[in-house]
């Protein structure tokens, strides 16, 4: 997403889905994972006669509400979408003007699409030619169409290609930057967008600034700390700009050096301590490895409102600390919704018993480690204060520093005002009325200035910039292969001083692009470019000229820095189709991938996995639970809805193994691990695959570990973790685990 057009976030909003004429969902199950958000889908059907198309390996609850359903083989979304494009190009259904003015590199896509005839697509995906034709016709002809996805599209070795393919489909149909269109990625949990924006990740500083020295210097300055001091905290200056481990593969950091384990590049040491704040690490792929890593750490600290089941999973007896963290009701602050809108969450009660909010835990830790003053200094700078007020000053610090995604307008005062007056906004357009007129609910980012309206629909050139309009971001240079990457004529947002494309705005080019003269004082105060201009001059001048500070460029279908410049189909590492593995092999092994030498080809070609493990394994969520299910399984009534871990299995498949409905069964993975679960007959899966929910913990490879819970903390429901049997496999760019397309073998227990 970010590599296609600038930002990797939901482009429209849940409410805007009501404007769609067609909705196509790949690898998402909003009826289960976003039940309230799904009401907008239902309203689109009800009020707008929208056609709901669901493409999924399972007949989900979302599929039950669909007009058309296609049961796709896991990991074959790219062929499916190329198949759609094949038909679209053949019939000339693409939006030629949009492609010409606003997209770069479609010719390569056109060539690849030509190869994917409907017959070939049917063979690879398992979806019939007729259904592919029907879906393509309905989707291409009913515009605007919105494209929805979630983890079903991303959790693959080719996840980062999948998430480029979907935007390409939308670009070809001209479905971007319009009401009722867009790529609407559904964030799976509360404030995931906010956590991502603040980059609780290992490869970038907050606001997606990356890890370059320039970025560190910008932050050092903005935090009011010495850059040299910051650098001194790292083992070497090089490590400061080196991506860290990921949540998916941190275990390699502990286990490296043991036989068969992936090698690491971690400045000569293994990981020794783990601090977990509110993350269900028992819901991460390769559970057996996670357990082994936990067992071999020197220190484990788990801060959670409930007992983090990592403490139950590990055999480690000493130096495992469980800290009682407060819940969201016991603290306050801003949270970011899936559509980039901010809301203020007020405290309901004081923290109960000994629990502390997360920031208190971090402050205490920083004090002990001796950098509390440096950690909190950034909150004092804006108003030159002596002491800070949590969380308002933290929110205002974010607004002061984060320019890349336009958080300047997100002051705590404004966010609170929106939340307090949420009834004064329209649920579909997010437009405010009455005293909130001229603003969109939650000021969806980019919100360029402290008076900006927010941008409910990204890349929408039908609105002026100061009312949320913009073209695609100029992020990938001005020219590639001799082709101009800036947007074409007449594709600037309404009211723009420049009518066509223009580059991102810097101190150097601002006078030329905007056709203005800066005063001597402005020249002195202005920052180097729009991303680091804390003076606000660039943003202000841009608003006046109707210019988006980040430029107006073409989206790119081709990412020349990726191993696959345009998305290419590659079979999962563990594929049920050895014939297709030969035709569409995976990538070469990737050295030093987030510090870990990660296997691709060597794993895929180790053997014909499908011989021993003939059944596709799909994992996903249940409506009554989320994540590792720690808090949900501790609720009596939620646990009652799914009191036991189970496996959805087609009666036809089960019969071949002598497994009756309700029998216990074993599931074996290519990793040599196994789980024992209850079989549940279901027609939602076809006869070549089984489904497992991933919310359970407390059992491990047939052994009940629930006696390890501290007294009074055992949840009502415990069971095997699906992720004990999910397969090895990680995305080539992001390293997200391939939990949505693996293999397994089953047996009656």
């Amino acid at each position: 997403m970010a590599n296609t057009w600038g930002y990797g976030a939901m482009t429209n909003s849940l409410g805007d889905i009501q404007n769609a004429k067609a909705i196509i969902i790949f690898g998402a199950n909003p009826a289960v994972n976003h039940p309230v958000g799904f009401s907008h889908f239902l309203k689109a059907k009800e009020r707008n006669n929208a056609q709901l198309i669901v493409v999924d390996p399972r007949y989900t609850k979302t599929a039950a509400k669909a007009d058309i359903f296609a049961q796709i083989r896991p990991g074959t979304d790219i062929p499916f979408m190329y198949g759609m494009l094949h038909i679209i190009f053949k019939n000339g259904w693409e939006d030629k003007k949009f492609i010409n003015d606003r997209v770069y590199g479609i010719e390569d896509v056109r060539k690849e699409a030509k190869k994917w005839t409907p017959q070939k697509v049917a063979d690879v995906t398992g979806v019939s030619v007729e259904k592919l034709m029907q879906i393509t016709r309905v989707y291409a002809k009913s515009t605007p169409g919105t494209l929805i996805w979630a983890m079903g599209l991303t959790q693959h070795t080719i996840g980062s290609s999948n998430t480029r393919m979907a935007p390409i489909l939308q670009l070809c149909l001209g479905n971007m930057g319009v009401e009722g269109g867009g790529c609407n990625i559904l964030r799976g949990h509360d404030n995931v967008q906010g956590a991502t924006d603040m980059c609780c990740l290992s490869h970038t500083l907050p606001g997606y600034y990356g890890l370059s020295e320039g970025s560190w210097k910008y932050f050092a300055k903005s935090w009011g700390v010495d850059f040299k001091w910051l650098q001194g905290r790292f083992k070497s200056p090089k490590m400061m700009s080196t991506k860290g481990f990921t949540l998916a593969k941190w275990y390699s950091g502990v286990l490296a050096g043991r036989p068969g384990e992936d090698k690491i590049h971690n400045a000569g040491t293994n990981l020794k301590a783990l601090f977990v704040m509110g993350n269900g690490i028992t819901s991460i792929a390769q559970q057996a490895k996670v357990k082994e890593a936990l067992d071999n750490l020197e220190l484990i600290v788990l801060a959670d409102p409930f007992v983090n089941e990592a403490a139950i999973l590990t055999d480690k007896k000493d130096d495992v600390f469980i800290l009682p963290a407060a819940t969201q009701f016991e603290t306050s602050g801003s949270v970011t919704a899936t559509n980039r809108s901010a809301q203020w969450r007020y405290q309901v009660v004081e923290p109960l018993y000994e629990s502390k909010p997360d920031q208190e835990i971090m402050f205490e830790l920083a004090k002990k480690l001796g950098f509390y003053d440096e950690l909190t200094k950034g909150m004092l700078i804006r108003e030159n204060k002596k002491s800070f007020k949590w969380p308002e000053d933290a929110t205002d610090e974010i607004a002061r520093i984060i320019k890349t995604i336009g958080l300047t307008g997100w002051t705590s005062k404004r966010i609170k005002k929106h939340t307090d007056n949420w009834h004064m906004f329209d649920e579909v357009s997010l437009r405010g009325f009455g005293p909130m007129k001229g603003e969109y609910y939650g000021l969806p980012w980019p919100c360029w200035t402290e008076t900006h309206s927010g941008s409910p629909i990204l890349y929408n050139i039908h609105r002026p910039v100061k009312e949320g309009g913009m073209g695609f971001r100029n992020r990938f240079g001005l020219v590639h292969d001799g082709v101009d990457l800036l947007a074409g004529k007449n594709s600037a947002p309404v009211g723009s001083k420049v009518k066509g494309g223009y580059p991102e705005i810097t101190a150097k080019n601002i006078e030329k692009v905007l056709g203005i003269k800066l005063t001597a004082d402005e020249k002195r105060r202005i920052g180097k470019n729009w991303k680091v201009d804390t003076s606000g001059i660039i943003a202000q001048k841009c608003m006046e000229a109707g210019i988006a500070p980040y430029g107006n460029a073409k989206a790119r279908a081709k990412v020349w820095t990726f191993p696959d410049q345009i998305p290419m189909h590659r079979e999962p590492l563990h594929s049920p189709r050895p014939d297709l593995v030969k035709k569409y092999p995976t990538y070469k092994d990737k050295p030093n991938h987030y510090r870990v030498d990660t296997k691709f080809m060597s794993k895929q070609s180790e053997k014909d996995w499908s011989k021993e493990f003939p059944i596709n394994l799909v994992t996903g969520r249940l409506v009554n639970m989320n994540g590792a299910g720690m808090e949900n399984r501790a609720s009596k009534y939620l646990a009652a809805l799914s009191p036991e871990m189970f496996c959805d299995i087609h009666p036809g498949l089960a019969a071949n193994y002598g497994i009756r409905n309700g029998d216990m069964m074993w599931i074996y993975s290519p990793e040599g691990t196994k789980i024992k679960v209850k079989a549940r007959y279901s027609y939602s899966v076809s006869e070549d695959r089984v489904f497992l929910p991933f919310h359970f913990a407390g059992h491990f490879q047939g052994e009940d570990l629930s006696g390890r819970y501290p007294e009074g903390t055992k949840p009502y429901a415990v069971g095997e973790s699906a992720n004990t049997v999910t397969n090895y496999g990680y995305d080539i760019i992001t390293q997200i685990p391939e939990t949505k397309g693996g293999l397994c073998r089953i047996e009656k227990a």
Partner: protein
Amino acid sequence: MSVNEMARMKFYCDDDRCIDCNGCSVACAEAHELPTGITRRKVITLNEGIEGKEVSTSVACMHCTDAPCEQVCPVDCFYIREDGIVLHDKKTCIGCGYCLYACPFGAPQFPRDGAFGTKGAMDKCTMCAGGPEETNSIEERELYGQNRIAEGKVPMCAAMCSTKALLVGDAQEVSKIYRARIAAKGKGVQSAPYGWSKAYGA
């Protein structure tokens, strides 16, 4: 609604909108602190996983017109409020289970912890309107759960419904919403939802 017309409270579940999320049943159980095993409201899914045939709806006591439970009760523990809400007196109920056989919706619930399957007093959805005890008293709360109607609040299940499939309230208001939805679709024929004619007549 004209001033002299009394409100007639009804439930309605729009199966085009119900997504089997069970928000209603969990909200109900949590609000009234029901023992596990007592399910005043549940979501029923038919043909689960079968393409084009799966359908879900939320079912509880429908508070029927001419409620069959009331008609068969040997100890006459039921009473019907003027607004149509069907309630019963747990202190009079003998747990015979006749009402369960009479009910077309399987609404009456019985505690299952007695030896040899003896049943205690029946429990069912009160449309969040409590029972015969003093309104909003502790006793009423313990026996019947919250009395939200007396507080002017919508019953918990419908308040929590994530897609607003489940509607409850004055029959005319419910009917207005349902009609608006059908009209918005601009196609098809308005047919009575599951259970509607059985509960409330034609």
